[in-house]
C-alpha cells in the first residue's frame, strides 16, 4: 500500500500535465452560441430604420419561405467585409432582412450606399433588445429562419466568400 502511494504525486502531476497540455493545444472556443437554434423566433416588432424600407416584425418570417436575418451595424467593420457576400446571396435569390444595432438612419443609409443594399427590410434595434431576444452576442451574426418562423442555424461573425455556397444550400434545405 505505502509503496503504491509513493507514485500518487507523480500520477497526479501526470494528470495535471495532460489537462494543461490539452488546453494549450486546443484553445477553448469562446464564441457564445445562441441556444435558440431549433426554437421559434421570439416575437418582436421594430420600427423602420431608413425611409422607403419597411421595419421588421417576427410575423414577417412566417411567409412560408426561408429567410436570412442579419444582425449588423454601420459602425461594425466586419459588416463591411461581409457586405459583398450578402449581395452575392441576394443575387442568388436568398431573401435577407436585417436588424440594425445601436444605429441611426442616416448612418445606415450611408452604409448601404457605400457597401450595397441586400436587405428587404431593416428594423431599428437601438437598444439591442431583439439582439438579446435572439441570443446574439455581437455583430455581424446571421440567423437562418425557415418558412414557419423557426430558427434553423446561426452564423457567427462575418460571412466569408467560401461560405456562400453552403448557405445557399442551407436555405434550400430549410424549406
Amino acid at each position: 500500500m505505502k509503496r503504491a502511494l509513493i507514485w500518487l504525486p507523480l500520477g497526479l502531476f501526470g494528470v495535471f500535465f495532460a489537462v494543461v497540455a490539452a488546453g494549450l493545444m486546443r484553445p477553448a472556443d469562446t464564441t457564445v452560441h445562441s441556444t435558440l437554434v431549433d426554437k421559434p423566433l421570439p416575437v418582436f416588432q421594430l420600427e423602420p430604420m431608413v425611409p422607403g424600407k419597411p421595419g421588421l416584425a417576427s410575423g414577417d418570417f412566417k411567409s412560408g419561405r426561408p429567410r436570412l436575418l442579419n444582425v449588423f451595424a454601420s459602425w461594425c467593420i466586419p459588416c463591411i467585409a461581409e457586405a459583398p457576400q450578402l449581395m452575392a446571396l441576394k443575387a442568388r435569390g436568398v431573401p435577407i432582412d436585417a436588424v440594425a444595432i445601436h444605429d441611426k438612419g442616416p448612418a445606415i443609409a450611408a452604409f448601404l450606399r457605400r457597401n450595397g443594399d441586400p436587405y428587404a427590410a431593416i428594423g431599428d434595434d437601438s437598444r439591442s433588445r431583439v439582439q438579446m431576444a435572439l441570443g446574439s452576442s455581437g455583430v455581424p451574426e446571421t440567423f437562418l429562419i425557415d418558412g414557419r418562423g423557426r430558427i434553423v442555424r446561426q452564423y457567427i461573425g462575418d460571412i466569408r466568400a467560401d461560405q456562400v455556397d453552403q448557405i445557399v444550400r442551407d436555405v434550400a434545405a430549410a424549406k
Partner: protein
Amino acid sequence: MSLSLALLLTAATATPDYGNMQLPDARAEAQARALMGELRCVVCQGQSIADSDADMAADMRALVRQRIARGESPEAIRAWLIERYGDYVSYDPPLSGATALLWATPILLLAVGAWIARSSFRKRR
C-alpha cells in the same frame, strides 16, 4: 407573454436609459444590482455586466432594470437569458452533469482533509 414582449420591444425608445441610470426604488435597484453582478457580459466575457463598459452590457443592464421595475423576479430574468445564451451567461452555474464536479469538489476536499486529519491524529497517540 408574447404580446407583452412585443409591446416592450416597441416601447424601448420611450423609456429612460436604465443601462447607466439607477432605478428610483432603492430596493428594486439593489435587487437589479445583485443580479447584474452575476450575469456575464457576452461581448467582454471576463466581466459581469455590472463591471463592463461595453454598449451591449449597458443594454443588458437596462433589460435587467426594466424587468425588475415591472415586477419580474431576478431568477425569471436569469432564466430568460439562460434560455438564449446558455448557462454560460450566468456566473451562478446550475447543478448539472457538467458542473457536478465543480459543486462536489469542496465536499470531496473536506472529506480528504478529514481523512488526513484523522490518520495524523491517530499517529500522535
